């Protein structure tokens, strides 16, 4: 007996309501952009500069009390959030204190840390500081720039590779799907105000990698079917290809999500935002291969004559033999 998430005779018309799904994606992208400008991302110190201190205590965290203690120091903007995690012991109470970059100092000064620690100790003598992280404004500017570069580079490299291996229509379809995924991920981070730091950029790039992986699998099948069914309507070919790869899509997304959920639940709070970004990215990445990349291919139209193998290069790697 086999576990089959997708039945053998699975055949669903993915393009029946393609205007609706495509419209929904477009709308979601617009909402994400609006959210980005209206609400903005909750940037971490990697991008804004400043200092975060993780506090741990056997006593309950009282955010108000912490705030009162820190206020007289005049450190400007202070944000205090309590951190919860299933793996904490009953008497383990963790909070994250974030202060903005101080004028005239790149990284945090010894005096500021000492003053902060003294202030918090005065309200909670049992408090300890398991981690202190500080980024100067100079470095944070550079980090933002490198991050943007990394995302743009990887999208461009993928665009180029797909163009090389397929046709430009495929390339454009794949890249629009990528932009869709990245935009929606940024949108959800704006909406939920999850801290956006350097590791999230790594997650974004992984999403780019995964999403393209997924899109390529569908496109590879489209290319093969275009050769097989020379006279069939493009929409029909796309639909067959998506249906044929559906079982694989569900299996791979399933195992990946299974692994990520384990990490989300058990991996600790430090990387939770990172894992969340990847879970979300894999869901939208899988969705976009079917509902964004393929309609674009349909809309742009593709070359129908794949009989000359030199042009597509579809099997040029296939002579690898074990």
């Amino acid at each position: 007996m086999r576990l089959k998430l997708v039945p053998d005779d699975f055949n669903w018309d993915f393009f029946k309501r393609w205007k609706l799904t495509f419209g929904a994606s477009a709308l979601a992208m617009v909402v994400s952009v609006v959210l980005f400008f209206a609400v903005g991302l909750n940037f971490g110190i990697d991008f804004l500069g400043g200092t975060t201190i993780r506090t741990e205590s056997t006593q309950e965290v009282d955010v108000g009390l912490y705030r009162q203690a820190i206020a007289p120091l005049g450190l400007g903007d202070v944000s205090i959030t309590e951190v919860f995690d299933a793996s904490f012991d009953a008497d383990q109470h963790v909070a994250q204190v974030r202060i903005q970059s101080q004028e005239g100092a790149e990284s945090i000064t010894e005096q500021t840390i000492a003053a902060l620690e003294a202030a918090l100790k005065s309200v909670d003598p049992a408090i300890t500081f398991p981690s202190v992280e500080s980024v100067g404004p100079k470095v944070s500017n550079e980090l933002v720039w490198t991050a943007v570069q990394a995302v743009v580079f990887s999208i461009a490299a993928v665009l180029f590779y797909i163009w090389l291996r397929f046709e430009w229509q495929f390339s454009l379809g794949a890249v629009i799907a990528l932009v869709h995924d990245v935009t929606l991920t940024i949108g959800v981070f704006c909406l939920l105000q999850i801290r956006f730091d350097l590791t999230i950029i790594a997650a974004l790039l992984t999403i780019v990698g995964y999403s393209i992986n997924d899109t390529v699998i569908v496109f590879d099948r489209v290319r093969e079917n275009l050769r097989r069914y020379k006279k069939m309507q493009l929409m029909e070919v796309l639909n067959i290809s998506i249906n044929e790869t559906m079982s694989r899509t569900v299996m791979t997304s399933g195992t990946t999500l299974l692994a990520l959920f384990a990490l989300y639940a058990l991996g600790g709070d430090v990387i939770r935002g990172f894992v969340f970004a990847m879970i979300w990215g894999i869901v939208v990445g899988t969705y976009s291969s079917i509902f964004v990349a393929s309609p674009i291919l349909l809309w742009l139209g593709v070359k129908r004559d794949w009989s000359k193998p030199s042009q597509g290069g579809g099997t040029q790697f296939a002579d690898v033999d074990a």
Partner: protein
Amino acid sequence: MLQISTWKRVLIWAFTALILFMAVPNLFYPRVESHNDALKQIEAAGATPELQEAVSAWPSWMPSGLLNLGLDLRGGAYLLADVQVEDVYAERMNGYWPEVRDALREKRDTVGAIRRVDGPAGELHVKIANPEARAEAIETAKGVSRPILSLTGVGSNDIEVTGQGDTLIVTLSEAEKIATDDRTVKQSLEIVRRRVDEAGTREPSIQRQGETRIIIQVPGIGSAQELKDLIGQTAKLTFHPVVSRTSDPEANPGARNLLVPSMDESGTYYIIEETFVVSGDELTDAQPSFDQNGRPAVSFRFNPTGARKFGDYTRDNIGSPFAIVLDNEVISAPTIQDHIPGGSGIITGNFTIEESTNLAVLLRAGALPAEMTFLQERTIGPELGADSIEAGRIATIVAFIAVLAFMWLSYGLFGIFANIALIINVGLIFGLLSIIGATLTLPGIAGIVLTVGMAVDANVLVFERIREELKTARGPSRAIELGYEKALSAILDANVTTFITAAILFALGSGPVRGFAITLGLGILTSVFCAIYITRMLIVMWFERRRPKTIEV
């Protein structure tokens, strides 16, 4: 054609076994770590029975390469320092002044009297009495310059001279600045390394980043502040003639003199001559010791040139005080009692034993050529790191079991083949990480978990394809073969694109992000290898033994 030639099989299994073998030490992490540490200590300080025992706990014929644990897993401190390379320019210009002065004096008849005036840091301003002779003065000063011998600076000189009214302005040329900056950073790097090594922490990593920056990562140190204290001090030790002593912090020291506070007596200031007699650069040794009253002190010894300068000065200035200055503070200002010819001496002050030990370390390692500012810092407590490892371990095991179960339920026997390949895959990742000496970070663990999820993709592609081919009923052998053949282009295209993003992450990322890129990239390589070689070979071996008429995937 389901044949795989024997030599290919041997090669694949041998390669896999070799890399898995390299991963074995990580299963016995504490034992191998103490083995490695003990070996290092024996090499440095000789053997003791305990160390010998630690060494023998791990057989020497086994590989002993371990995954390095990143700061976020082990705890420790990270600093990104920026070397203030401009600091050195001023000193360089001071060095040029005597030469420029002597050259201009020879032309006294035309340029007239000369005088050094204050200019911005890094520029040497010289006033000449006859502004009309400026052009000739510039030419004369230029005569002091030397051609640059570096690759990038061919054809240019080390200094540039311009004029403005009756003032000559001497600056370092751009090419010389670049060469000086490079030297300054290299020197700083070396000194930071020596200071961190002297403190005896394990596996510190000190790297240059970009033009003027240094990344310092020290596992096991209590806080970034401790690390800063260790490396941030310039530890510039100089011996100056004392002009006078005062309690007025606003006192005007006069031309070419400095007002320096006393380290021990607050409210006391010394006016000293700017030009030092001898500096710490000429020390050959410094050791913590005790003075005749049993208080902690630091004894030192100069090299021959330093000893001669020090000897000459003490001989000529018996009875007058001189100041021992460390980082712009007067440690002490004793009166010279006698001629000190041997070039060794002792520094006393209100030191604790710890301070005198530290000072000796700093003096021995040498002074930093320029100050450093800290752009970024991170302290991670060891408990937080241990928690992260524990959480990462549990998450990886759970993810692993879930994926194994899922594959078995979905593909039955073939799922088990894929599962064996997946287990080998994770072993390979650890083996490769140990071989290249990579550092495992928390995002790196996430990369491994993600790989566990994604690694089955290639197998899934093949299995799904075999299922499809079985429908057209051309017999199991042909279906397996076609399944592999047709899935290959999809597998390669999909993994090359993911690998591209991992490579870009590696190139542009830093620290933890880079750790993630490494595990993700290696994970892609090993999972493709496992899918197209290991799983395939398992299937082929099974097929050869059983020769089934039908297969169910």
